[in-house]
């Protein structure tokens, strides 16, 4: 049986073909093979959310999906969303509200927050907290992060 698999996926709009070891998870592949180091590796068992990426439009844990499972999928990372301008409003709000300190969690946090923004509805602070409950931040205490997301969702300043 094969321990490596020919795989092709579209990453941030570009078609990528590689032979990938089955044991390699998606975020390792993105970082090590494609040099997309914006998605971070924290816990590697699905707890911290630093590796959050989008696969076929849905946010997933990059460490809890094998790269070979992304065969035929559309993968979007923080680099793609940032370059396309999709995250512009969130990035501005995070900056203004001081919603990051060391920045390690920020890419995953922005991916999770954008998932909520795309739902296009007003949210309470409680709902925002629930939505980002799978993303750890060890610096900010979350208050400023919720402030920033709230500003984008509800247009408050």
């Amino acid at each position: 049986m094969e321990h490596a698999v020919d795989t092709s996926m579209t990453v941030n709009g570009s078609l990528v073909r590689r032979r990938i070891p089955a044991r390699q998870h998606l975020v390792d592949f993105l970082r090590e093979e494609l040099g997309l180091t914006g998605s971070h590796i924290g816990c590697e068992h699905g707890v911290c959310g630093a590796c959050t990426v989008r696969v076929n439009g849905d946010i997933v844990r990059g460490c809890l999906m094998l790269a070979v499972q992304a065969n035929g999928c559309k993968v979007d990372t923080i680099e793609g969303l940032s370059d396309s301008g999709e995250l512009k409003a969130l990035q501005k709000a995070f900056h203004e509200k001081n919603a990051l300190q060391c920045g390690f969690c920020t890419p995953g946090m922005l991916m999770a927050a954008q998932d909520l923004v795309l739902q296009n509805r007003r949210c309470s602070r409680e709902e925002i907290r629930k939505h980002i409950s799978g993303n750890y931040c060890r610096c900010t205490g979350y208050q400023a992060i919720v402030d920033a997301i709230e500003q984008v969702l509800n247009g408050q300043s």
Partner: protein
Amino acid sequence: MKAPSFAYSKPSSLEEALELLERPGATILAGGQSLIPSLNMRLSSPELLVDINGLPGFSKIEVLSSGVRIGCLVTHAQIEKSAEVSKHASLLAQAAPHIAHPAIRNRGTLGGSLALADPAAEYPACALASNATFILLGRKGERRVKAAEFFKGLFETDLRPGEILAAAEFPPADKAVFVELARRHGDYAIIGLAGTRVASRKRFVFLGAGATPVLAVNASRASTVGEARQALGEDLDPPADLYHTSDTKLHLARVLLERAWNTL
């Protein structure tokens, strides 16, 4: 950590999948939200992962004449959003938002959660409270097993080697309620309760209360909430965890029982 080395195959037919599962060290990969962390932590070391995500017909939610049949590959996110599930199996719809976080619910599956049989997980308790039937497919054909017979012990089920849990059927209930207490949203529950009522018959099933989901037989038979609270002491002897003693968990179980009783 990184996962150990293993082979990977993604069959496109059930026949092919069942054949692959006969190989030594073969393990099913569904949503992977429990399996991949256990690989990353090197708690398991399969020789072959059989990715069943390419199998046709396993991702369906079908309304039956009585209840709803949910394919094993239906994700928690789909269950959370499905109008059919909300209408015909509201217990599952109530439970799904408690499972981990949105990014995990987008990949984790009903079948994976039931087949893993984590006693602290939401769906096994829901299945037992609903008196669900599991459809298990193997090379010898199909077996239908009731939830009460399926969960045998800690992470131990009636699934035989080479079998796939293809779907689960949830009969309707007149009313259902799911409640759990966790330290932080999405964390493992300290204790949780899946309750159903069919006519005047109530069923209370606890998660995080033993090696399997636990049906509180005496509390379910009680006729008043006071009797039920009292009877729960005979039904449950929850194991202590890092933060909560057995007594604390029993106390919290009674709190949930009272909330559920008043809803049903």
